[in-house]
C-alpha cells in the first residue's frame, strides 16, 4: 500500500484517489511499527471499504487498536450524514453496546489484601460467567420490554440501581429512541435468561488497584486515588445483541438493492438512516444497548452484594463511569447531524460538551480502556482534540494478535497460572480454555495503543489500573 502517507507522527492517510469507490479519505492513528504489521492484515482494506458508504463524512477513521472485523474493522469510527446517509449494523458490531464499567471503592489494596481471595471467590459465585449458562433472572415478556425501552430506568425501579449510578453512565444508561417492538422476537428469546451474566471469551471482571495517577485534578474529580481498589466489568448485550445484529444484517441485505446501494463487502449491509429499515435498526440497536447497560448494572449489583458480604456493610462501590464501545449515536459534528458508528471505539467528549452531566462538564468524560487479561487498564479523559479530529472518539482496548487456536498451542495453562499468581493476581476462571485464549500474549500491547491516543491528543491519561483479581468464564 504505497499510497499511504504519513500526515503526523502517529497519523496516516489513505487518499480517496486510492480506489474509485471511495467517497472520502481514510485516516488511522498508529505508530510506524503498528503500520508495518497492519499491512499484512485485511483491516486496512476494511477501512477503505468504510470510505465507500453513502453519506460518509470526511474522514473514515480507525483507532490504533484497529484489527480485522466483519465489514467494518474493529477500531473503526465512521460518521455518516443522518439526512441522506446510511446506518449499518456492521458498523456497531454483533455485540451491541459491548462496553466497560468502572466501579470505585473507598479502600486501598493493602487494606483488603487479606480478604481478596475470598472476595474473588464470592464474586465468581455471584456473577454467572462462561458458556451457555443463563443467569438467575428470567425476564417475563413485559419485563423484557421494560428493560429494552427503559434501560437503567428499569434498573432503578427493579432495585438494581440508584439515581447517582445513572449520571455516571453514558446516555444515563438509556437511549430514548429505543423500541422493544423493533427487536426481533428471536433476540428477546435468546436474551431472556441472560441479564446479569458476564458471558465468555474476552468478557471479564477484574478487581484492580490504581497503580498510577497521571492527572491528579481529574482523578480527584472522578473519585480515583492511588492504591484504591476498583472493579472493572467488561461485557455487552449477550445473545440478544448478537441476534438483533444478525437479523438486521439479513434484512438490510435484502433491501439494499432497492435503495440503489452496492457495496464491496456484504457485511457492510446497510439502509438509508431515514428509511423504515434504517430507523427500525436504530431503534432496535438502542434497545439492545439498553439491555447491555442493564446487564452491567445487574452485575454491579451482584458485585456490590459480594463486596458487602466479604468486606462489611460500611463499604460500598460507586460507579465512576460506564462507556460503550460498540454503538451508533446521533451526534452533531461541525454543524452536521451524523450517525457516528463506533465499533471497537469509545466516545470521548471533551470539556464543555453540553451533553455531559455537570460532574464531567469541566473535565471531559472518562474513557475506559481495558487491557487484556492480567495487563494494565487505563482511565483517560476525552479532549477538545477528539472533538475536532476524530468525531469525539478514542480507542477501546488492545486487539488480538494470536487466534484462539494459536493461543492454545503456545500458551501453557500451568505457566500462565503461575505467572498470574507471581504477579499477585487472584484468578477465578471457569475453564482452562477461557484463561489460555485470553492470555496477554494473545493481544497487542495496550500501552502502545493508549500511547498513540495520548500522543495524538484524542484522549489524555488520567490513571493506570493493575489487576489484583480476574474473574471470567
Amino acid at each position: 500500500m504505497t499510497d499511504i502517507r504519513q500526515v503526523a507522527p502517529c497519523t496516516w492517510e489513505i487518499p480517496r484517489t486510492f480506489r474509485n469507490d471511495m467517497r472520502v479519505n481514510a485516516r488511522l492513528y498508529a505508530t510506524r511499527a503498528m503500520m508495518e504489521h497492519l499491512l499484512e492484515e485485511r483491516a486496512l482494506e476494511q477501512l477503505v471499504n468504510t470510505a465507500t458508504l453513502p453519506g460518509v463524512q470526511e474522514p473514515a477513521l480507525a483507532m490504533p487498536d484497529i484489527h480485522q472485523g466483519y465489514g467494518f474493522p474493529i477500531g473503526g469510527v465512521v460518521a455518516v450524514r443522518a439526512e441522506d446517509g446510511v446506518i449499518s449494523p456492521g458498523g456497531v458490531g454483533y455485540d451491541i453496546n459491548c462496553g466497560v464499567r468502572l466501579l470505585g471503592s473507598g479502600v486501598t489494596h493493602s487494606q483488603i489484601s487479606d480478604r481478596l481471595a475470598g472476595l474473588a471467590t464470592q464474586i465468581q459465585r455471584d456473577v454467572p460467567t462462561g458458556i451457555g449458562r443463563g443467569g438467575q433472572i428470567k425476564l417475563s415478556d413485559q419485563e423484557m420490554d421494560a428493560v429494552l425501552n427503559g434501560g437503567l430506568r428499569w434498573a432503578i425501579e427493579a432495585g438494581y440501581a440508584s439515581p447517582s449510578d445513572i449520571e455516571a453512565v453514558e446516555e444515563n444508561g438509556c437511549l430514548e429512541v429505543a423500541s422493544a417492538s423493533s427487536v426481533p422476537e428471536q433476540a428477546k428469546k435468546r436474551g431472556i435468561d441472560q441479564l446479569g451474566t458476564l458471558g465468555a471469551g474476552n468478557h471479564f471482571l477484574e478487581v484492580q488497584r490504581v497503580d498510577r495517577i497521571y492527572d491528579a485534578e481529574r482523578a480527584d474529580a472522578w473519585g480515583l486515588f492511588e492504591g484504591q481498589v476498583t472493579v472493572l466489568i467488561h461485557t455487552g448485550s449477550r445473545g440478544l445483541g448478537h441476534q438483533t445484529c444478525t437479523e438486521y444484517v439479513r434484512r438490510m441485505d435484502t433491501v439494499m438493492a432497492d435503495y440503489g446501494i452496492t457495496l464491496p463487502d456484504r457485511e457492510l449491509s446497510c439502509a438509508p438512516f431515514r428509511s423504515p429499515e434504517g430507523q427500525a435498526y436504530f431503534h432496535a440497536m438502542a434497545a439492545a444497548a439498553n439491555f447491555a447497560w442493564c446487564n452491567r448494572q445487574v452485575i454491579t449489583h451482584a458485585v456490590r452484594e459480594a463486596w458487602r458480604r466479604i468486606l462489611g456493610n460500611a463499604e460500598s462501590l460507586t460507579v465512576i463511569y460506564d462507556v460503550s464501545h460498540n454503538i451508533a449515536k446521533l451526534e452533531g459534528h461541525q454543524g452536521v447531524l451524523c450517525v457516528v458508528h463506533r465499533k471497537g471505539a469509545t466516545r470521548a467528549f471533551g470539556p464543555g460538551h453540553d451533553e455531559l452531566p455537570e460532574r464531567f462538564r469541566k473535565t471531559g468524560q472518562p474513557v475506559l480502556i481495558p487491557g487484556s487479561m492480567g495487563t494494565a487498564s487505563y482511565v483517560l479523559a476525552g479532549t477538545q482534540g477528539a472533538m475536532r479530529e476524530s468525531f469525539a472518539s478514542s480507542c477501546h482496548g488492545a486487539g488480538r494478535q494470536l487466534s484462539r487456536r494459536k493461543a492454545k498451542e503456545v500458551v501453557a495453562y500451568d505457566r500462565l497460572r503461575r505467572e498470574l499468581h507471581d504477579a499477585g493476581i487472584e484468578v477465578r476462571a471457569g475453564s482452562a480454555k477461557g484463561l489460555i485464549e485470553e492470555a496477554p500474549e494473545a493481544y497487542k500491547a495496550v500501552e502502545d495503543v493508549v500511547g498513540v491516543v495520548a500522543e495524538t491528543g484524542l484522549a489524555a491519561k488520567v490513571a493506570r489500573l493493575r489487576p489484583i483479581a480476574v474473574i471470567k468464564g
Partner: protein
Amino acid sequence: MTPLPSDRTPDSSAGFDLLAHSGDVKLRARGATLEQLFASAAQGMMTYLFGAEIARIRPQQTEEIRVEAADREALLVDWLSELLFRATTHYRAYVDFHIRDMEERKLIATAGVASAEAIDDIKAVTHHDLSIRKRDGGWEAIVVLDI
C-alpha cells in the same frame, strides 16, 4: 417434534474443518451435493458448539427447520443462524441433518435433537469471506463464525 424414524440415515457424511482465525472460526464444509454441503456445515457448527462427542448422540426426537433467503449464500448463513438460535436458546444439540427439499433460496430440513451442554460459544454466523463453490466434483463452502 416427532420421533426419529429408525431407517433415517443422516446426509452429513461428507465432512468439515474448523480453522483458526484471529478472533473467530472459519468453518470449511464439503459435500457431494448441495444438500450434503449444508448438512456438513451444520454438523461442523454443532461440533464446534458441543464437541465431537455429539457424533455419538442418539437423538430421540426430530425438529423441522424451514428457511428462506435472498440467495444461496444467504440461505447457508440463515440456515446456520436458525440452528444457532435454537441450540443456544433451548440448550440443545442438533444432529443427523436431512435436507428434504432444497432450492436456490429455500430449504426444508429435519434434524435430530438432544439436550446437551455447550463447550463453546458462537455469537453469530457472518457473511465475512462467505463462499459456496464447486470443487473436486462436489461442493465446498467457507463460513466465518463470530466467537
